[in-house]
């Protein structure tokens, strides 16, 4: 008998909270083995320079220093990092891999690239000694601007002869013909600049070599512990069984902690083995601004062809993509941009090409949204402008172009980041948009409120944008579920967790399957000795892929419970009810057995078992979806701008979201609200400013403005549910959604608030800021009373 799910879909408070709230959760910096040594890296102060000479003599003499290493000291261990994601099978693709190195050898290619490493008794001494190291640099002109870098001049990688990292073209239909037959063709240049993820916990690595056990343990702030384990074992010449990688509690990931291998991850374990002592390196905040990967530099030259009713006939887009100094993450980001641009709309023809450009800036890898922001920004801006030019309402032009609900699965023909054709599994877009408009009061605002406010001299505007998100891609994840003799249930999976609530959402899934209290399910994530296989937490896939693996393992354990209980009671399996931590015969009082007791009986110490019997109430299952599940949503905002200071006040913010089956609404709300906050930072507060030498000018939290509680508004959330047919639970990913459309929303709403298009100004770039808005539009408002 299958019971109704009790926990799936419920607002269950989190199992992991107590540990975190009491300061007893283990983060990487809390790992302090005896005899621990501390590492500090000497990093390049130049964006582009040749290393002529390194003198470590003074550093080595300093009291408390155990060792100093440069690239030369690493010997044959020195190797460029691996390619993480190979380029997808797209015809005519060009990709030049240049991966990061453990310590810079002949040349440094961005500020903050590690040049030398000091190991000392304390971090204080290690930093003193790093300052003792003398490096002679011959500085070179830096490649900072990607357009100029693509055109010629100095090159980041000498052997390549140019700065071209990649070129990809994907097409669908015949755009040229569409443009010829169009009523209107609208062309714009749209720019998205760099931001940083700024997880509150920086990165860190602790490595300990146990010579007696012949085993390496590495605590790492990674989102992908299983791959770190495999990679380290290969690099160090160890068996994978000799390497344990633990990603304990992680203080926020957001993508950059999925990058691998960071130089520090490669070097620290090697040093720990060499010195026979545990070694710790914790990134400081300044290092985080250079040494942790970043995202978002793209320049799009895009055009859209439309008929007179505002129906899209085609889109053409050519963009430049800043990869930073190295490109180990392959083409995930620009392909996400390329694919996400198509949005939830019928776009009969598409001609999209991009060029990746190496620059002397920190490495670019996915950060929450992972290139999707750019695609949404370009398409939504083009639609806004088209609506204006064709005199169609902004919401209406979107509605007219939506893929109809009957057209799914919908094949967009081009290739997505998971190497599969871009096919939307399911969706129902109009209700999402309509609910959003209703919640924000769109019609009333435009017809009634805005004219009144404008008459009062107030600058208040509205924005509404729509986006889709490819989530939950493969390849696979796995999970092991085991009923313990205590009656508690343990769940282990290979994904790491960075605050998404996996300890609770996975427990909910298992508690329903196995019939126990959700508090009696202990989830372990990110410990390779607890679960061997997996890929990691990225691409909004934890709940979708690992969640379904957990569900399958839970189902298998449930079957074992039914069989064991039926044997115990000598009855039919159909007569067994599993609930409340015990198995009973339905309707027969007294015929119950605790699951812990059944588990104990399933692992007998004496006697014979039937052939084929597996011990315990345990199962391991794997889940790999055929392709990603496509979520969607709409954001709307009413915002007021003070034209004297260009500061903003968000009056109302609405999100309506469809991510299929919801495991835990409480956790989902948190994911969306946090994503929107990051999106707001990206849209209006956060920008990495590099000068023409490649020096980052705002590398502190006092200068790089992460939104505070005063900047992020209260949000009203609405949900629609179109379950994914691609997994048994019907889940679509949700982790990145909140952050994706916010740039597009800000551009539209701020234009509307200041009535800019009528005044001849368009917002075609993100991030904005009060300063930037002033530069774009301040002249229009300089004299009071003329606005």
């Amino acid at each position: 008998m299958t019971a109704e799910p009790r926990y799936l879909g419920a607002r269950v408070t989190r199992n992991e909270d107590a540990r975190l709230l009491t300061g007893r959760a283990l983060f990487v910096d809390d790992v302090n083995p005896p005899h621990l040594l501390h590492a500090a890296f000497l990093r390049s102060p130049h964006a582009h320079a040749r290393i002529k000479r390194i003198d470590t003599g003074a550093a080595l003499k300093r009291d408390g220093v155990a060792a100093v290493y440069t690239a030369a000291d690493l010997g044959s261990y020195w190797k460029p990092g691996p390619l993480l994601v190979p380029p997808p099978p797209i015809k005519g693709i060009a990709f030049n891999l240049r991966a990061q190195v453990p310590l810079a050898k002949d040349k440094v290619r961005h500020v903050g690239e590690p040049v030398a490493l000091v190991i000392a008794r304390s971090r204080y001494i290690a930093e003193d000694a790093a300052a003792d190291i003398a490096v002679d640099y011959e500085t070179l002109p830096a490649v900072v601007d990607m357009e100029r870098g693509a055109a010629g001049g100095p090159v980041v990688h000498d052997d390549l002869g140019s700065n071209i990292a990649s070129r990809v073209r994907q097409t669908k239909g015949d755009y040229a013909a569409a443009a010829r037959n169009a009523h209107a063709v609208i062309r714009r240049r749209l720019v998205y600049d760099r931001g940083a993820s700024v997880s509150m916990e920086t990165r860190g690595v602790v490595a300990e070599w146990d010579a007696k056990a012949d085993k390496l343990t590495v605590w790492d702030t990674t989102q992908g512990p299983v791959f770190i384990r495999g990679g380290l074992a290969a690099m160090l010449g160890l068996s994978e069984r000799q390497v344990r990688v633990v990603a304990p509690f992680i203080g926020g990931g957001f993508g950059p902690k999925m990058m691998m291998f960071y130089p520090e991850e490669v070097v620290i374990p090697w040093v720990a083995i060499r010195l026979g002592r545990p070694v710790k390196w914790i990134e400081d905040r300044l290092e985080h601004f250079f040494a942790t990967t970043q995202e978002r530099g793209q320049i799009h030259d895009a055009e859209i062809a439309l008929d007179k009713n505002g129906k899209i006939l085609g889109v053409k887009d050519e963009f430049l993509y800043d990869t930073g100094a190295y490109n180990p993450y392959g083409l995930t980001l620009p392909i996400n941009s390329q694919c996400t641009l198509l949005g939830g709309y019928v776009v009969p023809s598409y001609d999209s090409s991009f060029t990746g450009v190496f620059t002397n800036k920190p490495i670019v890898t996915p950060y929450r949204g992972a290139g999707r922001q750019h695609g949404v920004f370009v398409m939504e801006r083009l639609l806004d402008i088209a609506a204006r030019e064709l005199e169609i309402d902004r919401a209406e032009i979107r509605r007219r172009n939506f893929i109809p609900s009957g057209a799914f699965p919908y094949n967009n023909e081009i290739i997505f980041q998971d190497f599969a054709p871009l096919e939307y599994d399911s969706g129902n877009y109009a209700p999402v948009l309509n609910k959003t408009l209703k919640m924000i009061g769109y019609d009333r605002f435009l017809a009634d409120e805005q004219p009144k406010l404008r008459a009062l001299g107030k600058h208040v505007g509205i924005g509404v944008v729509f986006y889709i998100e490819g989530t939950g891609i493969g390849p696979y994840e796995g999970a092991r579920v085991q009923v313990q003799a205590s009656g508690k249930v343990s769940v282990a999976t290979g994904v790491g967790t960075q605050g998404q609530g996996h300890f609770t959402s996975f427990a909910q899934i298992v508690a329903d399957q196995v019939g126990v209290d959700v508090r009696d399910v202990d989830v372990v994530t990110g410990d390779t000795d607890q679960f061997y296989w997996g890929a990691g937490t990225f691409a909004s896939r934890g709940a979708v892929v690992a969640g379904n693996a957990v569900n399958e393992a839970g189902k298998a354990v449930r079957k074992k419970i039914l069989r064991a209980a039926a044997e115990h009671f000598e009855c039919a399996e159909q007569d067994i009810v599993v609930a409340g931590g015990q198995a009973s015969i339905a309707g027969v009082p007294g015929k119950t057995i605790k699951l812990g007791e059944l588990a104990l009986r399933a692992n007998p110490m004496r006697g014979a078992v039937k052939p084929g019997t597996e011990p315990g109430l345990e199962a391991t299952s794997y889940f790999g979806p055929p392709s990603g599940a496509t979520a969607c949503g709409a954001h709307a905002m009413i915002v007021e701008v003070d034209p004297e200071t260009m500061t903003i006040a968000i009056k109302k913010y609405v999100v309506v979201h469809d991510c299929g089956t919801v495991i835990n609404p409480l956790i989902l709300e948190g994911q969306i609200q946090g994503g929107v906050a990051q999106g707001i930072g990206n849209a209006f507060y956060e920008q990495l400013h590099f000068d023409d030498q490649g020096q980052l000018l705002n590398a502190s939290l006092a200068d790089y403005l992460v939104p505070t509680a005063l900047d992020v508004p209260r949000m009203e959330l609405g949900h629609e549910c179109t379950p994914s047919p691609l997994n048994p639970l019907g889940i679509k990913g949700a982790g990145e959604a909140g952050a994706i459309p916010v740039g597009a929303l800000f551009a539209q709403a701020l234009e509307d608030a200041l009535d800019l298009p009528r005044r001849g100004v368009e917002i075609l770039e993100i991030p904005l800021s009060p300063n930037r808005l002033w530069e774009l539009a301040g002249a229009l408002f300089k004299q009071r009373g003329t606005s």
Partner: protein
Amino acid sequence: MSEELHQVAVQVNGKHCERRVESRLLLSDFLRHDLGLTGTHVGCEHGVCGACTVLMDGLPVRSCLMLAAQTNGHAIETVESLTNDRDKLHPLQQAFHEAHGLQCGFCTPGILMTMMAFLKETASPSEAEIREALSGNLCRCTGYQKIVEAVTLAARRIGQAGAR
């Protein structure tokens, strides 16, 4: 660099501690490394993010901007002081749990300590007052809304308990 050592006598979470420390030793490192109180987290080491906030004589301070030597003769409280029992959370912690006021939990100890001092000063705060009080603590996961809800809930409960 300074090699001079200072004798520090400080109450930490109600316990008397005496240590000899280097002049330059940060309070955050003293708490985490010397005393093993790793609940206090270090997010920026330049006084902006607020993750390392602890109470000194009842007032919030950034432990990354203070030297251990400066605490001589003072009383420090860290997140570990709020409860000894994982199953019996302080009402403020309980409210964060119920309202989902934390995700990765890294910034949480600093926020809890900031709010402890705030709620002592402000018995029934408005949402605007809570946001103002929170604005010195950065959180990258939650978008603050559920933190605001948690503090509102805690203020109400603590107020009710005080009124009884």
